[in-house]
Structures are given as structure tokens and as C-alpha cells.
């Protein structure tokens, strides 16, 4: 293992790069801002790669640990570390950031430096969320990462951006405050903010249930779980493409990650007792949201609903408490990161040309943009869970896991095979296929080399993970079985 503080680097390199980009100032230096941003994003990715290559898959505990005192009065420490559950998300964040910088290259014309800086800083903060092992440190990153996202939507967003941002804020606020209360309660019981100490803290059932719900409010909103999901379609519709990509690919994952890092290990008995409740909400998300997605007229809304439905698989997989389900949930999270990013980028490619997200404004795009159509088809198939794409792997694992728990869970979850294909491919049919629908479509140009690069990278990721998912699951086995055995032990 190298002596470098890798986790600090993956957090602070992008943030430092963001500050540097910000320093380029006004749009007169936009070119410099873009180049600096790309260098920063690539540097962020480069420093996160050793997390995978030097990761010890045989070890269940935390690796790359860094610890130093921070606020000594309250025993708050700067404590970082990753295990097989969190490590992949840091890579995913760093990878996505590169894509976002590339995707915004020419599209963003005003306040370029601020835009790029917002996403770089957000990247570092999100890495912090996944790496933090101190409750307060986690909370700080958790709240801080929202600020650049609010700005991204508020400054570069669509016409209704204020409503969307406020709605997002309303939802998030209650959850975050309850989480803070829970953290303080845990501190008062244990005398520390160490998350790993929280895991070992004995708690009565009542305490566990209250803590579970406090965390649940924070995490369920982020996932988002039905019925606290309605902020997501609005936020996506108003967000710029980069915002949608980060929102879908990373921000939704921090909610599910929270369940794994806090709810399950801190309140195992409550988690078991309430699993039926969560599973019900998850299955509602899969089926109900699948049907709602079918009738959306706005492409971004459709993909947003599709995200909610896919995230239903994640929470289902977590709360059936078996290896297939839990590993499936993690794989689904990574895969959804690739696919939802790709889908939003595809819509972005169309939006940049036509300035419309309405399905009805398109038709016959394949006639004018054959390369784009091929990419879109690939990602649509991945979104429908076609084998040999990453979309299949997670869904397959969760279905295999849930059938062990209860046949009917699997039955309802597997309905996504039909609904997922129906809403995705019906959209493809109306947008991509058919005769050229109107004069605007007639004037479309196929993808630029820059867009080709972005979509091509994601295509490689989606196909690679679909054909050979072993490297992704290998690293998580030990941590997952460790978590499952921990959760199996009562704390009462």
C-alpha cells in the first residue's frame, strides 16, 4: 500500500481544482477554465484508481484509513476509510465527473468557470460522503454537496428552476435535520462520533426504531423511495444536463449507501422488523413508477421515473438481507450510475440541438443521426435490463435474491422486464424511429467527436460491466458478508 493519503486526495484534488477553475474568473478565460477543469477531473480520476488496484479484496474492514483529530471538544475526528461497499462509488464519482466536464464543454457558454467549479467541488464532496467514517464529517459533506447542486440547478437550470430547487430543499431539509438529531443522540449514548463505534453500540428496540426512522427520512428522500420521490422528476427537468447526470448517477446512490452504512448496522433489529415496510415501498416503486414512466411525455421525466423504479431494486436488494440481494443492490447502483448518466447525456445531445425534451417534437432521428441512434439504442436496451449490458446484472442478482426471500417479491420485481422495456423502447420508437417528423429533425447533425467520446466511454462501461461483472463483485464479497453477519446479530 502506498504512503499517499489517497482518500484525502480524492476529496481535495477535485475541490482544489474547482477553486483554481473558479479563480480564472469571467467568461473571457472560458477556454482556460475548461482545460483546467478537465485536468482537475482527470487528476481526480487518476488518484482514485489506486483505490481499486491496491484494494485488498480479502479484507472486510476499512482500508486506506486516515485519522486525525478535528474538533477535540466533541471528539470529532477527520476519519476516512473505504471498504468493498463504498470504494466503487468513489471511482464512479470520479469517472462521472470527467464525463460531466466533457459534456459541458461547449454547451455551457455563460459562467463557464463557475459551472465547472461547481461540479468539481461537488465531486470532491461526494467522495467525502463515501469515505467519511465520522458522523459529523459525514454530515458536513452530506450537506455541503447539496450547495453546488442547488447552484447548478438554480443558475444553469430551466425556466421553472426555482420551484424545483425549493421542492428539493423542502424534501431534504426535514430528513437532514432528523439525521443530525439521530447523530447527536448516538453521540450522547456512545461519547463519540465514530460511525464504526455506532455499529457496536447496544440499543433498545425503541431507540433503534426511532433512529431507523430518523435516518430513513434522510436516506429515503435521496434514493428516492416512493412516496417521497416527487422532487426528482422536477429537479431533473430543470437541471442542466450535467446536473441531471450527477444527480442520477451519484446523488441517488448516497441515500442507498446511507442505509448500508448507518441504518442496517446501527439498528439491525429495527431494520429486520421494518424490512417488510421497506420492501413494500420498493416494490411499489418498481411497479407503480414503471407504469407512471410509461405515460410521460417529457424524455427527462421519463428517465427520472425510470431511475426511481431502478432504485427500487436497490432498496429491495438491501432489505431482503441475503448475499445475492445485497451484492445485486450494489451492482445495480454502479450500473444505474452508468446507464442513467448515458440516458441523460443522450437527451442532452438532443436538447442541445432542438431545445425540446418533448417526445412529440421528435421522430425519425435515426435518419439524420445514425451514430447517435446506435448509442441511444444501446443505452435504452441497457435501461431495459438486456443481458450483456450492466443493466441486467444488478436486476438479475436482486431478482435471484428476492426469490429466495419470497416468490412474490421476485414476481413483482421481475415485472420490470416488461414495464422497463415498454416505457424505454416506446420512447425510442417515437424519438428515434419512423420517418423524419418535421423540419427541425431534418436539420439535425450527428454526434460531434466530443459527444462520441463521452457516449463511447459509457458504452464501454455498460458493455464491459455486462459481459464481465466479476471484477465489480469480487471486491465486495468480504465487506458484504461481514455486513450481513453483523446485521444478523441482535443488539438488544
Amino acid at each position, binding site marked *: 500500500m502506498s504512503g499517499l493519503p489517497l482518500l484525502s486526495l480524492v476529496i481535495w484534488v477535485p475541490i482544489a481544482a474547482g477553486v483554481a477553475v473558479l479563480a480564472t474568473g469571467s467568461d473571457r478565460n472560458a477556454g482556460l477554465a475548461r482545460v483546467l477543469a478537465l485536468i482537475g477531473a482527470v487528476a481526480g480520476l487518476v488518484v482514485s484508481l489506486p483505490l481499486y488496484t491496491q484494494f485488498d479484496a480479502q479484507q472486510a474492514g476499512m482500508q486506506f484509513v486516515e485519522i486525525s483529530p478535528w474538533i477535540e471538544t466533541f471528539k470529532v475526528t477527520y476519519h476516512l476509510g473505504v471498504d468493498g461497499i463504498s470504494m466503487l462509488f468513489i471511482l464512479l464519482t470520479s469517472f462521472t465527473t470527467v464525463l460531466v466536464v466533457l459534456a459541458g464543454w461547449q454547451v455551457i457558454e455563460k459562467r463557464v468557470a463557475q459551472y465547472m467549479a461547481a461540479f468539481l467541488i461537488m465531486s470532491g464532496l461526494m467522495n467525502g460522503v463515501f469515505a467519511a467514517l465520522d458522523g459529523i464529517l459525514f454530515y458536513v459533506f452530506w450537506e455541503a454537496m447539496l450547495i453546488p447542486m442547488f447552484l447548478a440547478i438554480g443558475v444553469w437550470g430551466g425556466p421553472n428552476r426555482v420551484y424545483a430547487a425549493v421542492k428539493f430543499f423542502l424534501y431534504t431539509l426535514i430528513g437532514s435535520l432528523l439525521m443530525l438529531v439521530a447523530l447527536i443522540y448516538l453521540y450522547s449514548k456512545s461519547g463519540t462520533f465514530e460511525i464504526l463505534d455506532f455499529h457496536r453500540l447496544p440499543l433498545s428496540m425503541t431507540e433503534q426504531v426511532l433512529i431507523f426512522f430518523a435516518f430513513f427520512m434522510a436516506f429515503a428522500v435521496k434514493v428516492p423511495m416512493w412516496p417521497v420521490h*416527487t422532487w426528482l422528476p422536477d429537479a431533473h427537468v430543470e437541471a442542466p444536463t450535467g446536473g441531471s447526470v450527477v444527480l442520477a448517477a451519484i446523488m441517488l446512490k448516497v441515500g442507498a449507501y446511507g442505509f448500508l452504512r448507518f441504518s442496517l448496522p446501527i439498528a439491525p433489529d429495527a431494520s429486520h422488523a421494518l424490512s417488510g415496510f421497506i420492501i413494500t415501498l420498493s416494490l411499489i416503486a418498481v411497479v407503480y413508477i414503471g407504469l*407512471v414512466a410509461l405515460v410521460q411525455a417529457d424524455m427527462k421525466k421519463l428517465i427520472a421515473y425510470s431511475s426511481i423504479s431502478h432504485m427500487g431494486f436497490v432498496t429491495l436488494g438491501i432489505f431482503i438481507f441475503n448475499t445475492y440481494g445485497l451484492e445485486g443492490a450494489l451492482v445495480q447502483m454502479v450500473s444505474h450510475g452508468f446507464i442513467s448518466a448515458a440516458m441523460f447525456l443522450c437527451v442532452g445531445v438532443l436538447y442541445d440541438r432542438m431545445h425540446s425534451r418533448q417526445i412529440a417534437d421528435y421522430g425519425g432521428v435515426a435518419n439524420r443521426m445514425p451514430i447517435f441512434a446506435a448509442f441511444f439504442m444501446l443505452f435504452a436496451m441497457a435501461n431495459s435490463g*438486456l443481458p450483456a449490458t450492466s443493466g441486467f446484472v444488478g436486476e438479475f442478482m436482486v431478482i435471484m435474491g428476492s426469490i429466495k426471500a419470497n416468490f412474490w417479491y421476485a414476481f413483482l420485481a421481475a415485472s420490470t422486464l416488461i414495464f422497463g422495456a415498454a416505457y424505454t423502447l416506446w420512447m425510442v420508437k417515437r424519438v428515434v424511429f419512423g420517418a423524419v417528423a418535421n423540419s427541425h429533425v431534418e436539420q439535425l447533425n450527428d454526434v460531434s467527436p466530443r459527444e462520441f467520446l463521452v457516449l463511447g466511454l459509457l458504452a464501454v462501461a455498460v458493455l464491459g460491466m455486462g*459481459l464481465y461483472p466479476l471484477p465489480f463483485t469480487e471486491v465486495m464479497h468480504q465487506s458484504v458478508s461481514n455486513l450481513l453477519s453483523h446485521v444478523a446479530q441482535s443488539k438488544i
Partner: protein
Amino acid sequence: MTEMQKLYLLVPLAPLAGAAIAGLFGWLVGRAVSHWVTIIGVAVSFFASVLIFQDVMAGHTYNGSVYTWLTMGDTRLEIGFLIDRLTTLMMLVVTFVSLMVHIYTIGYMQEDPGYQRFFSYISLFTFSMLMLVMSNNFVQLFFGWEAVGLVSYLLIGFWFTRESAIYANLKAFLVNRVGDFGFLLGIGLVLAYFGSLDYATVFARAPEMANHTISLIGGQTWPLLTVICILLFVGAMGKSAQFPLHVWLPDSMEGPTPISALIHAATMVTAGIFMVARMSPLFELSETALSVVMVIGAITALFMGFLGVIQNDIKRVVAYSTLSQLGYMTVALGASAYPVAIFHLMTHAFFKALLFLAAGSVIIGMHHDQDIRHMGGLRKYMPITWITSLIGSLALIGTPFLAGFYSKDSIIEAVGLSHLPGSGFAYFAVVAGVFVTAFYSFRMYFLVFHGPERFREHLGHGHGHDGHGHGGEPHESPFVVTFPLVMLAIPSALIGYIAIEPLMLGDYFQNAIHIAGSHPAVEELGKEFPGAAAMALHAVTTLPFWLAAAGVGLSWFFYLKRTDIPEKIRARFSVIYAILDRKYGFDEFNDWFFAGGARMLGRSLWKGGDVAVIDNFFVNGTARLVGRISSLVRHFQSGYIFHYAFAMIIGVFVLMTLFVKG
């Protein structure tokens, strides 16, 4: 890696390489390179399959993995090959038909702007189908299963500017997904109870699971294997277009004709048949599942045949005939006559590919008019197409000595020997189906190749895509089109005579197919088998032969002799005609109930649930509640005396009522 293992890998990878080159670099390398590289890829695959066939016949079977795809906890899922006598037969059929279709495509698609894309797709299809049949585990089977569905989707919608084509391909994909839904649940139960998805492991443990039950609804318990087999069969119903999931196949004729031959007749639709045969160690343990298989197959065999009678589109007649023949294969599976089902799969692959390609040749000759009422007398203009079509039609209806006779007659006999519930109906269906098949096949044959030349009135009105020039008399197709016809006509005529003996005596498949001792149909067939020639001669004394002859005779009478009769029958039985014309109403029902219902449900959940309840009531409600209370209070402070007075009077009333009542 041994030499043979390299050869196994070469079989799927050669077409994949061709598909990749034609698909990704077709724009760069041009049309000729694209068709050469894919044809060579499939040819390599075919010759490798021949070598593997010889090796397997020499007694070398193989079961091994290529790489570990995924580990879930302690469960390892591998990509690997099982090469036994069932696999190698399928490999030969798939690669041979595919090779013929590749060659044919040069002629059929020559003026299509999507030439390279088409070659890429059909090679990709060949790869997918080979991965499916060569798999040694359920996961890879599901991969191939879905991949052929994907390529079928791409090919049905190949002419993506046509509304009917992109409707048909979406429909095909979704109906197949309904099947896959059941299939995946079946696979899930296998993994949950057997702890493995490897064929060998699962089949070995199957007998000990025979008495295992699971409870699904309430306290009711079901035999585990019955549930698994029926769920797996739901998958087969999707792919092999069995009632009621048959609805996608006729519409898939929107795709170019070569793929109708390759995918929607010879190979992909047989995936379900192959899968059930492969799973014979499981199906043999559940007579309930076998009964279901047999009844579904019988319904498909008979009722889909009826629909062929009234079709006027040349490809649709052949499509309904395919549905009906798939029903025959399924019935054979239900009767535990797996070898016979695979036998019919093979003979059908040859003569049905031939019939489709011949139909395509007619379509080229007719300048893309597909209506058989516009044809007639084409035998003079298209002699090779005519003779090969005749061979194909005769093989299809079960003319003694030709391929279809041996397989179909064996199916009828096997069903006659079955004692499962439903076998009586199945026997009736397959026997009656012989007459229907003969009638519609020769209706088409006579209308196309014999009788008056009706095309003169219709030429120039041809529909279909642009490309081939319009006008002029029908003409024989080029060599690249007729060559595959001839190459397919040979096995259509001979393969039954050659293959019946090893198949019937029951030693060909060895342990690739498992048949329980309590299902002796195949064994009895083998005992009674008098030799290929004697079997054909003996057929003249049996009912099916005379039913087929009657079917041909009747169609001759109706469509060549007294051409006024069909019109009269149609007028007389207009209700029945209407039912058949609307295909028993399945399409309307599915569109209304499933597609419409899902959209309505989605809209009401969205508007009622998300917008009305969650957003308006809860989210915005909090804010609005504050506003409403303040506005209520404001109403009371309106400043008008009579408002206050009115409120006081109401108040007094309320108080008095309360006091008086109290």
C-alpha cells in the same frame, strides 16, 4: 486449451467478428467486404460445426467453462459450452441455414441502403443463437435467449421509417419479454432450490427434488418442478410463439424476407423447443407441466393453421404455417417425444427456410407485390423458384419420402401413444392439422404458380420498399437467390429419409435427452419402426396421408377449378370469416386491455397519486394549509355588519340546538 476447445470458441466468435466488422466499419470497408466478411465468418462456423459433429459422433462430448462471468457470494456463474449430440445437431442446422440466408441476402438486399447493417445483424443473430444452443448453464441460455430477441427486434424494425415495422418490432419485443418474465422466474427458482445454474448439477439433483413442494398462494402447495417447468415453458411460449403469446410472429413479417426465413422460421422460434428438450430431465419429472405443454402446443397447431387459410399476403401464409408447425413440435415435447420434436425442428428448419426464401424470390419477381391474389402462373417465369417451392410445400404437408413426412408422422404416432391428460385433444389437433396444412399450403402454391396470370393488372402497384425497378413481367431471381433455394431443397427432400433411422431407434441423442421409463412413446416408436422406405409406403394406408391428399385436392378444386366457390363460402360463413380475419381478436384485446390498460393505470397513478395526493396534498398542502387558515380568518373580518350579524344568528342557532337536544 485443446484443439477442439479452440474450435468450440471459433463457432460463435467467427460470426461475431463478422458482425463487428460489418456493423462498426461497414461504412469504411463497403458493401462487398461486408458481405464477404460475414459470409466467411458463418462459413467458418459451419465447417467448424461439421468437424465438431464428427468429433461428437466419435464419442467426444464436452462440458466446460470459458470464463467466470460473475460470483454472487459463493455462487459462481460461468460462461461455458456443453457440446453433446443435441448441441451439435442444432449448431449444424443454425449455421447451415444462416449461411444460405447470408448468400441469399446479397441478392435480396442488393439495393437497400442498409446493406452492411443488415449483414451485421444477421451475423450477430447467428452468434447469439449459437451461444444459446451451446450453453452449459441457465445464465448463458438466458443471454442467448434475450440476445436473439434483441436482434429480432432490430431486424423486424430494419426498415425503421415504416410505421408498421416499428410497431411490429416493439410488439415482438414486449410479447417476448412477457415470456422472459416467466423464464427468469423459473431460473430464479432453480437457483434458489438447486443452488446452481449449471445444467449438469441441476439435472443431477432433479430426481431428489421431484417430491419437493412450495407454497405460493395461501397454504396451497405445488410440486416445485411443476412450477419451475411451467415458468420455463412460459419463456418457450414467447420465443416459440405458442398460444397466447403467438401474436408477435405474424407481425414480424414486416422485416425483410431473409430474416423471416432465418429467425422467424428456422432458428430463433425453435429456441423454445430446443430449451424444453434440453430441460428434459426436469420436464420428465412433472406430468402436469408436460400436459400443459401438450395442450398449448395442440391449440397452436390447429387454431393457427386455420388462420393461414384466409391470408392473402404470401409471407403471412407461411408465417401462420410456421406457428402451426411450432405447435406440432410443442405437442411432441408434451408427449415426451423430445427426439421427435428436435427431428421436426430440423426438417422444418430446412423446408420452412426454403419456403420463406422462395416467397422472397417470388416477391422480387413480382416487384415487391406480396398479395397472392395478384400472382398466378408464375411457374413459367420462375422455374427454379417454382420447383423448389413445390418440394418445400410437399415436404411441409407430409408427402411420403420427403422430410416433413417422417417427422410429422412420428409426432402423430407419438401423441397417439401418450396417455397424459389432454393427449386425446392433442391427437385430434395434430391429425386435423394435417388437412388444414395441406389446404392452405397448396392454396398458396396454386394461386402463385398455377392458374391465370393475374399479375398484369397489378404490376406497377407493388408496395413495399423502393429499390427494385417496377414494371415488366415477373422474372427468375439471380443465382445468389436461387442457389440457396436449391441447397435447401435437397435436405427438405432427403433429410427425413436419412435421419429417421438413427433418431427413431433412439440411440442418436444418448444421454443428451432424458426420457422417463413411464413415458415410453419414443421407445415404442423405435420398436415399431419398420425402416424408412417401409414407413413411407405404409403411410398410404393411414388417415393423415389421405387427409393431406384431401387438403391438396380441395384446394385444387377451389382455387383452380371452381374459383367462385371460396367467395361463396366466405359470404355464406361471414361470421367465421370475420373471426379468422381478426385473428380471433387477440390483437384488439391486447391493444385494448394490456397496452391501453397499462397506459390508463399509469396516467391515473401519475395524475392521481403523484400529482394530486403527494404533490398537491402533502407537499404543497403544508404551505397551502397556512394560507387557507389565514384566508378563512380573513373572511370573517369582512367589515360588513350583516356578515357579523349573520354569523351571530347562526351561532345562536347552533348553541340553542345543542342545549335543547342535550
